[in-house]
């Protein structure tokens, strides 16, 4: 990271830290959603941007994190967010490890179809086994039952919502910063460089003695854990998890985050996720037909601006210099 990037990151962090002081509860809540989704996008992009694998099934890991929390709360009576995070990571890691073994043997279109098919298996299970998962009603994870920082902070009473959003915003912000820093280290480590080498030329990487499958599997695992963590953080905010989080449009959204921001940039997916979240909320408010808007934006993006918002902004600023 050079000095300019560090300064920019610090500036963004200061702005983010000040948001609850200026914005109302609703805006803070929206941004919290955006930050959780950004973690999912970061994880997803380790596969698409850095390993060259397009997953159409990341809803599975997001849902594993979300359902992990809901099931732990329902059946084990746990209320500590830290334990939820551990549980969510274990669930999504186990799932990604298992699905990864199957998926990384393929690339390109077969990888995409396989990830899609496997995520749909989970969706049908969550949908059909309603006596465990609540079926279409889903499972509730009310914030009033939640405690943060090992029980130090809890939110009793009916009017605790605003307080919850403020605390939870900072909680998510810290996790988000840790995740971003971690992902930065991963993609700039020898491991990350090897993934990029596999992406750019699989045959050469193989000749250099790289064990392709093992690296892809590890990338898949890390990617799944990040996305699962996003699902874990998302659930208390949403208060409910339904089979929708496992269904293919959720995977489509995660793909959208990365393409919107630009998947060849480290920050692209983060920017894409946050902007997408606003886009979705306001587009739904304005029109019932927001899918058409999304679809049109996606077509325009991949046709004319394949480097996404961040990539295009970088190119424009380079031109101005």
């Amino acid at each position: 990271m050079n000095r300019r990037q560090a300064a920019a990151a610090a500036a963004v962090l200061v702005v983010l830290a000040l948001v609850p002081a200026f914005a109302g509860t609703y805006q803070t809540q929206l941004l919290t959603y955006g930050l959780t989704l950004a973690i999912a996008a970061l994880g997803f992009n380790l596969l698409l941007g850095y390993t060259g694998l397009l997953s159409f099934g990341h809803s599975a890991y997001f849902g594993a994190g979300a359902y992990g929390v809901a099931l732990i709360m329902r059946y084990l009576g746990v209320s500590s967010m830290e334990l939820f995070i551990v549980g969510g990571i274990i669930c999504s890691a186990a799932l990604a490890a298992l699905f990864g073994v199957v998926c990384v043997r393929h690339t390109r279109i077969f990888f995409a179809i396989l990830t899609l098919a496997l995520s749909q298996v989970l969706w049908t299970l969550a949908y059909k086994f309603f006596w465990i998962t609540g079926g279409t009603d889903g499972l509730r994870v009310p914030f009033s039952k939640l405690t943060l920082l090992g029980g130090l902070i809890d939110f009793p009473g009916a009017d605790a919502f605003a307080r919850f959003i403020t605390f939870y915003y900072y909680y998510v912000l810290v996790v988000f910063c840790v995740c971003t820093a971690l992902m930065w280290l991963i993609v700039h480590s020898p491991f990350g460089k090897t993934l990029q080498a596999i992406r750019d030329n699989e045959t050469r990487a193989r000749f250099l003695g790289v064990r392709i499958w093992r690296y892809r599997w590890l990338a898949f695992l890390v990617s799944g854990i990040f996305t699962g963590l996003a699902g874990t953080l998302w659930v208390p905010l949403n208060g409910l998890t339904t089979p929708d989080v496992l269904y293919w449009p959720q995977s489509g959204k995660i793909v959208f985050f990365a393409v919107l921001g630009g998947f060849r940039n480290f920050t692209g997916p983060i920017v894409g996720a946050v902007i997408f979240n606003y886009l979705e909320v306001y587009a739904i408010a304005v029109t019932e037909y927001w899918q058409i808007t999304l679809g049109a934006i996606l077509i325009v993006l991949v046709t004319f601006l394949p480097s996404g918002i961040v990539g295009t902004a970088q190119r424009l600023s380079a031109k101005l210099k």
Partner: protein
Amino acid sequence: MEIVALQVLNSLFYAAVLFLIAAGLSLIFGVMGIVNMAHGSFYALGAYVTAWSVGAAAAALPPAALFVFLLLGAISAAVIGLAIEPTLIRPFYRRQEEYQLLVTFGLLLVLEDVIRLVWGGTPLTASGLVDSLGLVRIGGLPYPVYNLLMIGVGAVAALALWAFVYRTKFGVLLRATAQDRRMAAALGIDVGRIYVLAFGLGCFMAGLGGAIVVPSQAAVLGMGVEVLVIAFVVVVIGGLGSLEGALVGALIVSALRTITIQFWEEFELAALYLIAAIVLLIRPTGLFGRKA
């Protein structure tokens, strides 16, 4: 015993529909090398056009004449496909697969909402077509003649497609283009025309699949995506790009679905996806697939 016979017929009816969709998907992939994520939406389009036109004309026309509208559904899907390929899809042949998937995914989102915009959220039915043909007794149990007829339509479509691809001059050009686009272009084949016609034909078949299914079950929102994922399962089992594979895959998937619905309803879809995953593990190119 009669129940088994009926279940076999049900399974064949479903296989006919699945074949039409999966063969179109496979044809487009085989010729152009793109996987059309919006393929299911063409199926839904065929279903909606047929249901809507049958509903609008039911009072004015005799029931037998309404069967024309099955063709109308298929043709509408084909016309839209013919318009979309040169404008939206064509710039993507030279680009990476990720972008091809993404642009057709965008198309899927748009088409799903266009259907909602035009026909709204209420399901449309065309059950008059099924009623008009009445029932036939199979070993004492009643069964709709319509389904039998449509099994026949599926079989005829499979034969016609085979004859078209393997016995006509256009089929030769099609296969030549699929094997080596640049060589075909160098030999004077108008590749652009082959592509647009192949895409249109694929959409026509998807639309026909939707049209023949809609009299027996309503046209609902989301039907396109549901069928897309199952069509993926079919082509993955049969082999992406292979028409024989689409036929065998459709028969396997529909038989499996009928059996699981009968005995283990909760696992109906899960079983299908698992089978696809297992086939990909053991035989990545599917039962009839070529080496990529």
